[in-house]
């Protein structure tokens, strides 16, 4: 578990792709696994479907999904003690959208009724009043954001958001980024995402790690480091195709009229 021994097997689990695999976020697991194996690490990628015990992993990814399956996933994870144990042992967790919301204290169902989350991230999500936030999301990391092994900040975060709830950060969670374009957490503070220790949540689809490989490497660096210590620095990869994609996406944000119109029509929250 989460050892610094780079000869040990690195295990990455995508939690409940059968329930929370609606928005392509399963790709995050693939990105992590490939980037580890391209660096010569023994890597195992597990698609951990619901209905059976959660496997032990160094790094968990939870993706976005529909309201009903989100409630089911939270119930199943609360009932399965292995997730809590993994947290105690310092496993790294990436939650996206519905997966981000259920890492918090509570999240709403379709009718706005709150459901208990896992409480591993100090955030609370409630039904949003405004229109659904749909479109390209661009955010620049804040000074509070997790640092790269070099001590530097992550580059701009890019992705696509598609959600209606709003997420409020508690004292123990820090924002990952400040929204440049889009809605993000949507609670009025212009923040996007939240993190504490080795748990990070975001509204970015894309998948987020395909669009932001530096974040992928940071999560891998956490998983390879002992809990509490700085992330392990990884040798760089040839990411020219991803850099090109990032460049194109960042340039496009000024052009994504339709998404902006959707948001403007309903006014700001």
């Amino acid at each position, binding site marked *: 578990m989460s050892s610094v021994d780079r000869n040990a097997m690195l295990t990455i689990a995508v939690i409940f792709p059968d329930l929370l695999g609606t928005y392509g976020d399963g790709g995050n697991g693939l990105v992590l696994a490939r980037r580890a194996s391209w660096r010569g690490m023994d890597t195992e990628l597990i698609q951990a479907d619901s209905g059976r015990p959660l496997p032990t992993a160094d790094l968990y990814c939870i993706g976005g999904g529909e309201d009903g399956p989100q409630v089911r996933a939270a119930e199943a994870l609360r009932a399965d003690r292995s997730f809590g144990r993994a947290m105690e042992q310092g496993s790294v967790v990436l939650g996206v959208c519905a997966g981000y919301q259920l890492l918090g204290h509570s999240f709403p169902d379709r009718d706005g009724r709150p459901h208990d989350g896992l409480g591993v991230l100090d955030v609370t999500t409630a039904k949003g009043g405004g229109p659904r936030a749909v479109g390209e999301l661009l955010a620049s990391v804040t000074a509070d954001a997790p640092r790269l092994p070099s001590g530097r900040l992550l580059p701009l975060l890019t992705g*696509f958001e598609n959600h209606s709830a709003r997420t409020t950060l508690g004292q123990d969670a820090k924002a990952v980024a400040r929204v440049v374009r889009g809605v993000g957490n949507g609670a009025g503070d212009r923040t996007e995402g939240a993190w504490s220790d080795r748990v990070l949540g975001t509204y970015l689809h894309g998948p987020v790690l395909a669009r932001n490989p530096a974040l992928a490497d940071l999560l891998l660096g956490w998983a390879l480091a002992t809990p509490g210590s700085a992330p392990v620095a990884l040798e760089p990869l040839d990411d020219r195709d991803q850099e090109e994609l990032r460049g194109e996406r960042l340039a496009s944000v000024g052009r994504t009229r339709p998404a902006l119109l959707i948001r403007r029509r309903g006014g700001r929250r």
Partner: protein
Amino acid sequence: MIVDSRSDRQVLPVRAAVAAEAVTMSNRLSRALGRGSGTVVGGRIGLAIDPRLLVTLAEGRRVALVTGTNGKTTTTRMLATALAASEGLLVVSNHTGANMPAGHVAAMVGSTREVPAVLEVDEGYLGRVMADTGPRTVVLLNLSRDQLDRISEVRMLADRWREALGSPGRTTAGGSPPAVVANADDPMVVYAASAAAGVHWVGAGQAWRNDAVGCPSCGGRIVFDDTGRKGPDGANGADGADGAIGADGADPADGADGSDPADGAQAGQGGHGGHGGWSCERCGLSRPRCVAWVDGSVLALADGSRYSLDIGLPGQFNRSNAAMAAVAAALTEGEGAQDGLGWSRGVSRAVDHIARVREVAGRFSHVSRRGRAVRLLLAKNPAGWTAIFDLLDEGGQTCEPVVLSVNARIADGLDTSWLWDVPFERLAGRVALATGDRRLDLAVRLRYAGVECTVVADPVAAIDRAIDCTQQTAPHAAIDFLGNYTAFADMRSRL
């Protein structure tokens, strides 16, 4: 044949007549200006003049509606072809794929109410179009994720279908509730359709299951049992090696792998025709008993008759579409021969007519470029791409280069995350080119899928590059072009 009848006009109320004339005029104008077929523009103008125009046009007319995430356009064409051929009648249809009320209006304007209408319906419009047209037949193909930024999530759509199908009394047109032809292999469809009164369940198959694991009825877990459900082409369940969600412990089916279709009636029929196939662990929602089902390349009916689905369109998913269309044709025909020998004969006749469809709105068509055949294939969402990959595998030739083109315009959905749900890993070993507006997203996805690709900005140039790349290695290999909605339309207009 499908012909827009313009000769004998329907006698309409004044307002509707003015509106109908406006539709005809604006369509003619739009065509003259070279702005496409103009069906949507004309329909919109007509509906603006008379909001009840769809109701008026459908009144007293036999209407069949076809909806679902994938296969709508093809199944609509098949059903229209079968109806027209077996009755020697004109049939009107929105065959350009304009599948919202404006397109429906444009399809029916100018024809009398004796002319049946076969209408493709956008998934989100089923309730409204049912209410307005009082259809005789409703065909429900499948429901899976598609354009999540624009269209509702799958379960919301299933709920809306269920509401529409459960209250046929609301139809403006009145009359008896429609005969519903529904795919028993898709739990989302079954949940929605089981609210309807008269459902004719067809085991049409559904290779894509990733949206149906959570029961749409109770949220429980749906378990698929593939025992005995593997027809000759049923490789889907075993193909879990891709990056998407792996199949559950693949169950080697007994000898039923299609070696002897004639014996299929004993071998796998428990799963095909009867119950089984899938069920919810919690509430017991399960695959209903079918009146017809696809058994490999055969359409089997509950009365024991079997008809070859040796059709002109490629791919197992088109045999599924043909099965749905054939059953629907038999139910829509004449006075509606509902059951028994007449029905079986009607299905058989429909299959024969459907077999002759070779191309639908350019899909599956072959064009020639620099002496090489280019096959144009449309794939809009993960389920669609997966089905097209099955089709490529059926060809069995991995030397065929593929040109993949992805856009993310309004009609495609603006978010390309779905690319990561498509098992591109299955293309490994082929010469692959990435093109379209979002070729860079595609290139990153392919890199992580272990598929080497060349990025070419212009789609036609990408086809030329594919020809060049294989001029030495496979000079006779056809080029397969796979594009999502607008990428496909662009290519079709340019080749």
